């Protein structure tokens, strides 16, 4: 189907475009920007007057909960949510049940998502079998089955010898290893940042050094093994400083942060709001500001939703017993938009963090609007506010610190490979 998106404000970080321009789509690809190609006849015209047209969002961490955890969410519910959030590509971590540690599981997941014909799903394979941190998975086989990288999700990998060998093995094949730095023995049973709020509320604390010590291990091992490392969900000012230094020294590391951590701090826990029970924990205001600085100066490459739908009962517990995580697919765009407004940076820079940058980390052709690229597009209304409620969220998980708040930026259309997969 041919589509002509007209009268919109086009924002394309890769090509540095932020201007009024039309977009022409045919056979699933972008064929032209601004200038109508010869012989182009519209089949469908989308009038984007007053709307922003940008690349479809690329999310580096979205738990779809399949296989095994369908009571929390299903592929159908979460991919619909992703499309409604303007997301056209996403990576899913291996912490399913069983974990994504066998090619058969990955093939099944790819097959199921393909049949749903919605968002592009890129599975991240388990680094060790059953995520137990003992034996390596068949990474090359998993890669052939469709895994784009290998990670340990939030499971502990205490044995540094195993981690080093996993990195060496991955680097043999040129695979990336994605790691969330958190030293389990220092995390202990902690549920909140070791700061003022944990002191006041009597919540078992997680010190910043749980992140920095793990980060230090990862950075040294990356240097030793030469593996490409992607650091997931950085949370502290000290962590940002360490990543900045590593990058200055030319280490092949990239880094992301969860969108909640860009906006919130430990203060938002308030009176034990279990929707603010997140992994890693929300840290201090100083840490949050350092995360923003890191994003602006490029230390942190990308922002992800860190989507983790949790069933309602698992949040209706005392803070320490409540399950960690928040839903995020449908909030990522609005919160990235709100972030740009709050700290007063050009929208193109904020959008780059959720489109171009994560696409580069995933090494996929996406996140930009160059003619010839797949027509993965998000069209949203920057003026329209929407209220985050259990009814407005399509994801099966209704848990988010932003529940009840009004957010700017409403997705109007999502296109994937030139097909309109969401229209509001």
């Amino acid at each position, binding site marked *: 189907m041919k589509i002509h998106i007209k009268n919109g404000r086009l924002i394309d970080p890769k090509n540095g475009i932020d201007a009024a321009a039309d977009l022409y789509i045919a056979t699933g690809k972008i064929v032209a920007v601004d200038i109508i190609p010869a012989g182009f006849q519209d089949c469908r015209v989308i009038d984007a007057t007053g709307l922003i047209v940008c690349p479809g969002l690329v999310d580096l961490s979205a738990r779809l909960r399949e296989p095994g955890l369908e009571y929390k969410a299903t592929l159908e519910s979460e991919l619909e949510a992703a499309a409604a959030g303007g997301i056209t590509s996403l990576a899913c971590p291996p912490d399913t049940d069983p974990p994504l540690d066998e090619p058969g599981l990955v093939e099944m997941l790819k097959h199921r998502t393909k049949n749903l014909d919605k968002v592009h799903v890129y599975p991240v394979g388990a680094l060790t079998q059953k995520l137990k941190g003992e034996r390596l998975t068949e990474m090359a086989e998993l890669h052939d089955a469709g895994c784009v990288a290998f990670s340990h999700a939030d499971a502990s990998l205490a044995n540094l010898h195993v981690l080093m060998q996993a990195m060496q093995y991955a680097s043999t094949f040129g695979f990336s290893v994605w790691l969330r730095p958190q030293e389990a023995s220092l995390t202990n049973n902690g549920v909140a940042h*070791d*700061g*003022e709020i*944990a*002191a*006041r*509320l*009597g*919540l*078992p*604390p997680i*010190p910043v050094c749980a992140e920095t010590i793990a980060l230090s291990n990862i950075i040294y091992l990356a240097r030793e093994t030469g593996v490409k490392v992607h650091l997931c969900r950085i949370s502290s000012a000290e962590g940002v400083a360490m990543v900045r230094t590593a990058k200055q020294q030319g280490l092949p590391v990239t880094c992301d942060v969860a969108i909640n951590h860009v906006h919130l701090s430990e203060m938002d826990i*308030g*009176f*034990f*709001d*279990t929707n603010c029970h997140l992994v890693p924990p929300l840290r201090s205001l100083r840490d949050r500001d350092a995360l923003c600085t890191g994003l602006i100066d490029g230390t942190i490459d990308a922002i992800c939703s860190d989507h983790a739908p949790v069933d309602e*009962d698992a949040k*209706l*517990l*005392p*803070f*320490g*017993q409540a399950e960690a995580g928040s839903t995020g697919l449908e909030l990522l765009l609005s919160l990235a938009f709100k972030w740009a407004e709050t700290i007063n940076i050009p929208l193109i820079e904020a959008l780059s963090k959720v489109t171009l940058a994560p696409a580069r980390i995933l090494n996929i052709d996406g996140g930009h609007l160059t003619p010839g690229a797949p027509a993965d597009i998000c069209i949203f209304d920057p003026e329209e506010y929407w209220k985050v409620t259990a009814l407005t969220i399509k994801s099966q998980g209704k848990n988010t610190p932003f529940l009840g708040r009004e957010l700017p930026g409403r997705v109007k259309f999502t296109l994937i490979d030139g097909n309109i997969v969401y229209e509001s």
Partner: protein
Amino acid sequence: MNRNPQLNKHGELQHLLTTEGLPVSILLHILDTAESFAGVTEREVKKIPLLRGKSVFNLFFESSTRTRTTFEIAAKRLSADVINLNIAASAQSKGETLLDTVNNLSAMHADMFVVRHLQSGAAHMIASHVRPEIHVINAGDGRHAHPTQALLDMFTIRRYKKDFHNLRVAIVGDILHSRVARSQIHALTTLGVPEVRVIAPKTLLPSKVERLGVRVYHDMVQGLKDIDVLIMLRLQNERMLGASLPSAEEYFKYYGLTQEKLSLAKQDAIVMHPGPMNRGVEIDSAVADGKQSVILSQVTFGIAVRMAVMSILAGN
């Protein structure tokens, strides 16, 4: 959830969950009301009919003898019906969730829940889910708060020291794991005590404890100088099983209260302890039973203070 969940829309006490954020007027109202009940406990006929026909459920998800008993006595002296539930041994072990338990008991027309739970925030969670006519009293949640203990401590301090505004108070021991200490700190600072000190090794202090408005000491000799009120905290045996402390003996040597260390404080300093005491671990018997100790008075006052809290809640 931005509003103080303890207060109703008129600013009156709806639940008692923590001493943090309570206005000084409410704290003083509780202490003054307790003062009027203190006489009742010494009368021949100890009952008054303020809570007649009301049902008070003691919901203890964690074992307790003293606190549960004093709540029970307080409720009975106010003529309430008291139902004791030891949940640690019942429904929750059968897999029922905390809120299901609470909803079931609400359906039995409870008027007041007295809740103890091993998780910080449990009382807040219950309070935010019960019907508006039900009052929740936090009888201890994890490491977070134990407001009635702190209030009875304030009552005791006022009885012996009259005015809060010229006192130096030291809290000694395991602040990190202590809900009592947190509630005492908030109550003391709200009531205008100019100097609250905490004395402990670093392993037993929250990392940002100074943000609670206290001065931090690691040494008893410096920390006890010029002190009017000494509050000793119970040291749980499990601290020695982990890596918090090497031994009870070393702890006693450096942080246990002996007559000798007590002499560093003001001559008329009082010694308090929320109980149950570990004699020879945090406090020497000679001090616990000595003339500066007011530990048994605390227990007696505990009944009057809990009567005050229950009657105020029932009236709001």
